[in-house]
Every structure is written in structure tokens, then in C-alpha cells.
């Protein structure tokens, strides 16, 4: 995505920071329930997640396993031994005055995820931390709900490898699919279990077509859906374009998206960045996972959506759209392949046509198809219907021909419009229940037969 400003070309440089709430039973550092959404305020809390004096964190092993799973799914390099760091700042929703996170040694780093086009998006890091509480503004007062404080959160950071919004959307949707597929999170943007922070800038395109990363980036916060992410980035492109046009350089800052007004508003300038004073968390010794355990975790990874889609395109010659839809729902892909394999076993003629039919059946299924037998039955019915239709059309065509001898003669004499008349007649009789092409085909073949 490029814009032209004052005669120069500028390209969008876009990356994402994603926060994912894990669907563990307990919080990250205490045994409170992690299911905080919709609960009465301050009811899933304890002295530990409230940061009371003398309390200590004890890590949740499941959360760590989930994080490794995510790191493997994103093809990351793994730190089999890692530790936590403290990140300090004061805010009412941060009970201890610091967040236990990972700064120096994240669980996963230098990974990648491919788009369906094959373009590789680099993943900088995957790390584990704890969520904060929530501020609620009511009647001029600010209240704090700590139910969410301490819920395990995985942070995923991409390199700024995107240059257009469609790729961004595909990537994010794919991520969401993956998280749900590997069952580590509900990845629900409305419930806040998946949060987005795009970061972007405009880079001047050099004569050789490449770009240098600009010296600024704008981080966008408060985005609750993919749709708003798109809108926010689009607004930013416009805003930054205007600045550059007027000879000003956009500054490094954080901006919040206002969905009512459709604009972004400056929140905090990065030069005045808070000094988080990271240092290794002394209350939690380094954690080491042995290679066997990690192998086990890696093994539990199912085939991921993009992998599956690309395999379907390659092996079954499905279209890109068909492949994407089939891999969106976990059971669709499974059903598809099971059905194909069943037919292969039965040695029934499996041609491209049938494969496509099966794909479409599953994609369009309104009644839930529970297993391959359901699919095969529906396939059978459809084919029968096609056959039935074939017979019906055939009979109708023959009838129309016998009732319209003149038109037949006209067509034979070269009048093209006569065939269209015959098609019309047939369609009327069939009440439009057959494709015109098919009818035309049959008419012509019958006429030629009779010769």
C-alpha cells in the first residue's frame, strides 16, 4: 500500500502487538479462577493477585505449556530455560506497582507465520506475563476491578513486515484461528481475550524499490475488532500523509482509537517513555523444561489452518477460497478428508468434480453434517438429484423439440435465435430448475442425434 506525497512514494510499514488471554483454569501466579469475564467486581481475587504485603507469586505450569504451544505454532526458536522480569510503573490497575512479565529471555523468539500467498511474516517474540485489573469510570469516579489482575497473558510481537491492510487482516484472522485450534484461548476480541495494537509508519520508497525503517512508529491502542484495526490504520495513514505533505515529520507516540469519532488521539509521547526498570524477578527461580516435555508439547500441535489450506490446494486442487473456508472450522477440514478417504477406499471413481462437490456440500451445509457417512449420503442424494434432473431435462427437451418442429428447422437452417427460443420454452416447462447451459447443450445434442 503506497501513497504519493509531494511527488515521492511512501509505503505503509505495519506490525502488530497482540495480547492473548490464556484459557487456563487459574490465574498466572495464584490459584484464583481465571474466568473473570462477567463476574461481579473483585470476586475472583485473593491476597496474592491483590498484591497484599508478604504475598508471593507461584507460576501456573499450564500457562507456561500453552505459551510453548503458541511459540511452536508460530515456528519460534525456544528458550527451554527462561525467567520472569519485573516491569515497574504506577497505575491503579497494577496492584504490585510492577507487572511480572518477560523482557530479557522470552519463551519464544524469531518465529514466522506464512500468509496463504506464501509471504512470511516474522514473529519477534512470544512471551508470558500477567494481566492487569480494569478501571471503570462511573459517575465521575474511577473504580478498580481486580478480577482480571493476574490472568495469564501471552504477548506476541511481529516485525513490521506488513505493507497492506488485507495481509494484516488475513494474518490476524489466521492467528485467531490458530489460538482456537490449539485450544489455548477463546481469542475473542469482544470479550477482550485477544487484543490488538497495530504499530505503523510511512516509509519513503528508495529508487531501488526498498525502504529504510523510519525513525518513528505510531502505536495504536483501544482497538476492539479487526474492522476497527483497519479503520484506525486507515485514519493514521491519512493523518501521517497530511503531516508529511506539510513538511512535518510524524512523531513516535501512542495514540488511542476513538471508535465513535473514527479518529486517533495522542496518549503518550514515547520520548517521555517511562523507565520500567526491568530486573529479573527474584521470587521465581529460573524455570527449565526438559527436552522430552517440550517434545510432548510440540507433538500436541494439530495441523494449523494455513498449512492445511495450502495442502488442500496442492493435493485436492481446491480453490483458495474453498480451502480457506474448509480450514476455518476445525471439523470441516477433518470431515472433508475423511469423506475423500472413504471414497478412495471404496474405490469409487473419485474425480475432481466429486471432490469439488464434497467441498461445496460441506461449506454450504445448513444441517449439521456429523460424520463422513452424512456427507456421503448427501453426496449420493445430490447426484441422484442431478441424475433425476438429467432425466427430467432430457424428457422435457425431447418434448419441446417435438412440439416446436418449426424452431428446430429454423435452427438447422442457421437461425441461432431459434435455439434460444427452444431454451426458453424448456426453462418454462422446467420452471427454471435447470441451468440454461445444460438445456442448450442437451437441445443441440438431441437435434444433432436426430440428424
Amino acid at each position, binding site marked *: 500500500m503506497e501513497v504519493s506525497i509531494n511527488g515521492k512514494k511512501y509505503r505503509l510499514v505495519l506490525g502488530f502487538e497482540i495480547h492473548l488471554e490464556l484459557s487456563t483454569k487459574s490465574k498466572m501466579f495464584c490459584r484464583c479462577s481465571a474466568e473473570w469475564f462477567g463476574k461481579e467486581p473483585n470476586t475472583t481475587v485473593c491476597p496474592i493477585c491483590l498484591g497484599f504485603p508478604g504475598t508471593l507469586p507461584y507460576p501456573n505450569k499450564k500457562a507456561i505449556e500453552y505459551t510453548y504451544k503458541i511459540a511452536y505454532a508460530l515456528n519460534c526458536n525456544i528458550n527451554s530455560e527462561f525467567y520472569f522480569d519485573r516491569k*515497574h510503573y504506577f497505575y491503579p490497575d497494577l496492584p504490585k506497582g510492577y507487572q511480572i512479565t518477560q523482557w530479557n529471555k522470552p519463551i519464544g523468539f524469531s518465529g514466522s507465520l506464512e500468509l496463504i500467498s506464501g509471504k512470511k511474516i516474522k514473529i519477534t517474540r512470544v512471551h508470558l506475563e500477567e494481566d492487569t485489573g480494569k478501571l471503570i469510570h462511573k459517575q465521575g469516579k474511577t473504580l478498580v476491578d481486580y478480577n482480571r489482575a493476574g490472568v495469564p497473558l501471552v504477548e506476541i510481537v511481529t516485525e513490521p513486515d506488513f505493507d497492506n491492510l488485507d495481509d494484516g487482516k488475513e494474518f490476524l484472522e489466521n492467528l485467531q484461528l490458530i489460538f482456537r485450534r490449539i485450544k489455548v484461548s477463546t481469542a475473542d476480541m469482544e470479550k477482550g481475550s485477544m487484543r490488538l495494537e497495530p504499530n505503523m509508519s510511512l516509509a519513503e520508497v528508495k529508487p531501488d524499490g526498498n525502504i529504510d525503517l523510519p525513525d518513528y512508529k505510531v502505536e495504536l491502542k483501544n482497538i476492539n475488532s479487526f474492522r476497527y484495526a483497519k479503520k484506525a490504520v486507515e485514519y493514521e495513514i491519512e493523518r501521517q500523509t497530511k503531516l508529511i505533505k506539510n513538511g512535518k515529520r510524524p512523531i513516535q507516540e501512542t495514540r488511542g482509537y476513538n471508535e465513535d469519532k473514527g479518529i486517533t488521539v495522542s496518549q503518550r509521547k514515547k520520548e517521555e517513555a517511562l523507565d520500567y526498570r526491568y530486573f529479573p524477578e527474584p521470587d521465581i527461580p529460573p524455570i527449565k523444561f526438559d527436552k522430552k516435555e517440550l517434545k510432548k508439547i510440540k507433538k500436541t500441535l494439530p495441523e494449523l489452518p494455513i498449512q492445511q489450506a495450502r495442502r488442500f490446494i496442492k493435493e485436492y486442487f481446491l480453490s483458495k477460497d474453498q480451502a480457506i473456508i474448509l480450514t476455518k472450522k476445525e471439523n470441516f477440514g477433518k470431515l472433508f478428508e475423511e469423506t475423500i478417504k472413504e471414497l478412495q477406499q471404496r474405490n469409487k471413481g473419485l474425480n475432481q468434480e466429486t471432490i469439488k462437490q464434497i467441498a461445496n456440500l460441506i461449506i454450504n451445509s445448513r444441517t449439521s453434517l456429523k460424520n463422513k457417512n452424512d456427507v456421503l449420503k448427501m453426496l449420493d442424494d445430490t447426484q441422484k438429484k442431478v441424475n433425476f434432473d438429467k432425466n427430467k431435462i432430457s424428457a422435457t427437451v425431447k418434448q419441446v423439440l417435438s412440439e416446436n418442429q418449426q424452431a428446430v428447422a429454423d435452427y438447422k437452417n442457421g437461425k441461432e435465435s431459434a435455439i434460444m427460443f427452444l431454451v426458453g420454452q424448456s426453462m418454462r416447462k422446467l420452471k427454471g430448475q435447470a441451468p440454461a447451459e445444460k438445456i442448450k447443450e442437451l437441445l443441440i445434442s438431441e437435434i444433432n442425434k436426430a440428424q
Partner: protein
Amino acid sequence: MTDILGLGLLELKKLIEEKKISYKEVFDYFIARIKKHNPKLNAYITVCDKQNEDKLPIAVKDNFCTKGIRTTAASKVLDNFVPNYNAEVIDRLLANNFSILGKTNMDAWAHGSSTETSDYGPTKNPWNLDHIPGGSSGGSGAVVSAYLAPAAIGSETAGSIRQPAGWCGVIGFKPTYGRISRFGLIAMASSFDCPGPMTLNVQDAAYLLGVLSGQDKKDATTVEKPPELYFEKLAEGKKLVIGIPEEYFDNIQKETAQNFEKSKQVFNKLGFKFKKIKLISPEYAISVYTIIQRAEVASNLSRFDGIRFGNTRDRFGFEAKKRIMLGNFVLSAGYYSAFYQQAQKLRQEIKADFARVFSEVDLILAPVVPSTALKLGEFEKYPFFGELIDKFNEPAAIAGLPAVSFPTGFDNKKLPTSLQLIGNYLDELRLLQTLYKFQQETNYFDVIKLGVEKWK
């Protein structure tokens, strides 16, 4: 009623079991003594005088969270804080038939070696009311010395058990870091803090160590290896090789040095051998400790914002503010690697230094403090007095090693002198066994006995 003045925990337990005295009589006895003597000493912040349980009372430093009992860490920030949970140490005491007699005074937030930074007034040294008891567990040291409790629990970051034990003339035991759970102990410096017993004799210390030690699933830094039978095996033990870091004994008070010689002779008589050792200069330990401790302090005090509990940050005393700010300084961008990281590197050196020495000797004998108890107000001259006076205690704290301080006699002002034995990781048993032999031989030159009698 039998006169129980000066009887240790286990001696009282025995009398109760023999039905020579009742739990209530013991409890009432201590409450009466506290009412009589505490106004002079100011060793207690809270006294739990309404009790009716068949349990042995024990004093606990006011930085251990006690459910339903005010816990202040001697700071006005927590003046009104009543926890609804117990520290693990408290849970274990209660499960072993102890009750909380009261919460003892301390330096606010454990920031100090004098108990003068308490927001509830200083504690006086029972040996001389013009002198300080040491700190930060000054209250715990004083109540044991003056027999206002049969024993007390203190905490140590670097010297906060050993030093007040030394200046009050009682026994102070700091276990290996991670031996006893820190859950519910208001954190000062997370990678140093150790709860520990302060007692009138080594049997009580061994017994309490057994009660309190063990892995705790609420504290990820606790040690997995189960504790040994400290009390049961107290009278066993071989003769060991004791290392003496000679530079430590340069420039210390004359009487402290003289009493060291006297004690050395006792160990010799008991069959222990001595060996000269060389350790990294304590000057470096002071710096390493000051930097890392203050960084962790700054971090650990961030949670005190007055929102969920306690009062707001304007109630912090000047010492706390100083430590928080220096801590944030050494962690800040631009200084982190030169100070905090550098100090951590040097920390590894100190640990390696001890590892090397413990391949040559079994235990180390060292002074606890360069002099006997200072007068009230003397420390104001020094910007980081606490850390300076604890230079002999910081190395073992930095390395996480166990140590015990014990009385060795008096100086010419009748203030107690002391020494400490330092052991390798998880070597609490041999420390206790060695001290037991010393106790049987000398009874600490009657220091503890005379201390209790002073407060008849």
C-alpha cells in the same frame, strides 16, 4: 507458682507436660512482665493480651502477617493494616501449639540496624537503656534478652537477626535462604530475606528451626530438600575444621577481639581445628548488598499506594524514601548495567569465594559486629549506617548461607560481645551441633543468664 524466669521454650514445655505449671500461668506471667517492663524497653508494638488457649506464647517480629492481628512493619503506612491471612511461619507456629504473644518492634520496613527508624519509637537495649538493641529485629532481640517472651521470631536480610542477637546477648539463627518460607513476610529484599529464631539457648533454636523449615508451595524460592532432624540430632556431631578470615578481625573493638580469643580456646579444647582463610574484602560486600537490596526494596515497596490497604505513600519515613530512591536509581536506564548488573556479577564472585573456602573448611568463625551496641542517635552521622555496621553479616547473606550469632562475654561497659559461625548451604545441623558443644562447655559465659536476671 514455680519460678520460670529465664526458662527456654522447651523447658517450659516440659514443665507444662509435667503439670508443674499451666499454659495460662505461663501466659499470664509473660503478660505481667510485659506490662511492667515494656514501657521502658518499647520492644512490643502490639501485645495480644486477650488469650485463653493451651498454647505456648512466642513473640513475632511485626513484619510477619498475622491474621486478625495488626501488622505494621513498624511503619505508619500500615498503621491500620490487619491482614486476613497468616504468614507461612505463623501457620506453622500455630499448628505446633504456639500462640502469638505479641508483635515486636523493628526498624520500619526492616530498613536499618538499630530499630531507631521505627515509626513507633526506638527499642532500648536491655543491657543499657541509652544504647540501641541493634536491628532490624531489635524488638525480638530485646524481648528474649529481658525475658518478655520465651523466644522470638525475627527476620534477616543481612544481619537483622544476627546483629541484634549479638548486641542483646542472645542467640540469633539465620537459616539458608529458602530454608524457611517467606510467604507472608513483608518483603524487604526478596533474594535475601530469611525468617529465623532468636532464643535463649540452642535447643530452642533447633526446635523452632524444625517447626518452621520446609518447602512451601506458596513460595517458589523455598528449598526442596527436606529439613534435617535439627533438634533430635543436636547432641551428635564430629569435630570440625573452622576457618578464620583474619582480615575480618582487624580493627574491631578490643574486647570483641579478646573474647574471640577466649572462645577460640574453648573450641580448641573441644577438639575443633582452626585454619586461616582469605575471603573477599567485606568492603565489596557492603556495596553489592547496598545496591541489590535497595533495588529490591524500591520494587517491593511499590505496592504500598494506599488503594487496597494501608495509608498513602506520604507516610513513608525518610529512611524508606532514601532507600526507594537509591534503589530506583541503580535500576534506571543508563545506570542499570554499571550498578545493578555489576553488583549481581560481584554477587556470583562472593558465592564462588565461599564455595572455594568451604572445600577447605567445614565452618567459618567471624565477628558479628565491629563493636558492641552503639548509643542511641549515633548512626545519624552515616548515610548508610545499616549497611556499614553489617559488613561481617552481608557476605553470608549475599551468598544465602546459614549462620548463627551467639554471646561470648562482655566489654568494659557490661555490653555483650558476640561471634558467629557461618556454614555452607543447608548445613544448619552442623552449625547447631557445634554451638551446642560450645553452650554445654561455657553457657555463653553466663551472658544470657545475667541478661535475664537483670530484668527480674
